[in-house]
């Protein structure tokens, strides 16, 4: 899995490209599947050893819908817009995760329970996680600079 900075930056890149606002909602959901997975650390304090095997649902499409339904009431914002941003954030998270080879990581079932195929692109190794961090930062900076140049050109 990429680090959280990569998830944040990839979320920001998507927001910049598609001009999505509020950005923080996309980023929130881009991090949320990993936040949910971290619940498994409760096993250090409580006798819930099997919890981990249920938390994979956060990385599935059905999990994204569940998360959406849970967080929607907390935002005073048009539901359809929140829903759209949540789905985009979730896709950005899944896309970033699936770039990694799952040799070290749990394998996810994105279309569970309808389709039991484990999917991953697997072009980056977990020990080279920084490749995606550096690449995403560079892409974000290029987009920002291009935007600034275009604005200067327009004015």
């Amino acid at each position: 899995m990429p680090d959280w900075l990569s998830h944040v930056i990839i979320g920001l890149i998507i927001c910049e490209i598609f001009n999505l606002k509020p950005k923080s909602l996309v980023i929130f959901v881009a991090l949320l599947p990993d936040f949910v997975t971290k619940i498994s650390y409760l096993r250090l304090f409580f006798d819930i050893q099997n919890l981990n095997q249920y938390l994979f649902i956060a990385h599935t499409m059905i999990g994204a819908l569940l998360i959406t339904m849970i967080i929607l009431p907390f935002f005073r914002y048009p539901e359809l817009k929140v829903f759209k941003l949540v789905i985009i954030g979730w896709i950005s998270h899944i896309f970033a995760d699936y770039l990694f080879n799952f040799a070290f990581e749990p394998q996810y079932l994105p279309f569970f329970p309808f389709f039991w195929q484990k999917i991953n692109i697997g072009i980056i190794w977990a020990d080279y996680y920084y490749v995606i961090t550096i690449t995403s930062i560079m892409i974000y900076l290029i987009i920002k600079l291009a935007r600034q140049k275009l604005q200067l050109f327009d004015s």
Partner: protein
Amino acid sequence: MSGIIMVRENRPSPKGEACHQSMTGGVGFRLTCEIGVVGNIVASNINDNQNLYFFKRAGYETLTEKDAKILIFSDKPLRKAKFGVTFLKIKYIEEGFFIVQDLHYGDYQNIKYFVSIVGLIIFLVLFNKEWRITKHGWRLRHNA
């Protein structure tokens, strides 16, 4: 990753070295793949003396049984992964013999957690900039 050869316990390596007979318990190693098949294994432990042990999870499920023990002969130093596992991409040559094509260490990386905290801080700053919490939930700030 040439120079690393994996061999089933109690079989001589292609270099002619005999495996350590003292290493017992290698029973349970079974091959069901075709010659030349490339598979993945995840080793939970590699000894410091480069003759290895292990392993827990077979990424390539038809290749081995769980907890099989295999010896590794290596020209290059191998190390134990730091609080993690070692991944080996292997090519099956003949029964008991593999060539390791790729090797990665799944080390616990403190810097990755530090970078993640930086990401979390950026997210919290952005979120606080765009949303304000009220009795009825988060509302978008007017200047967001």
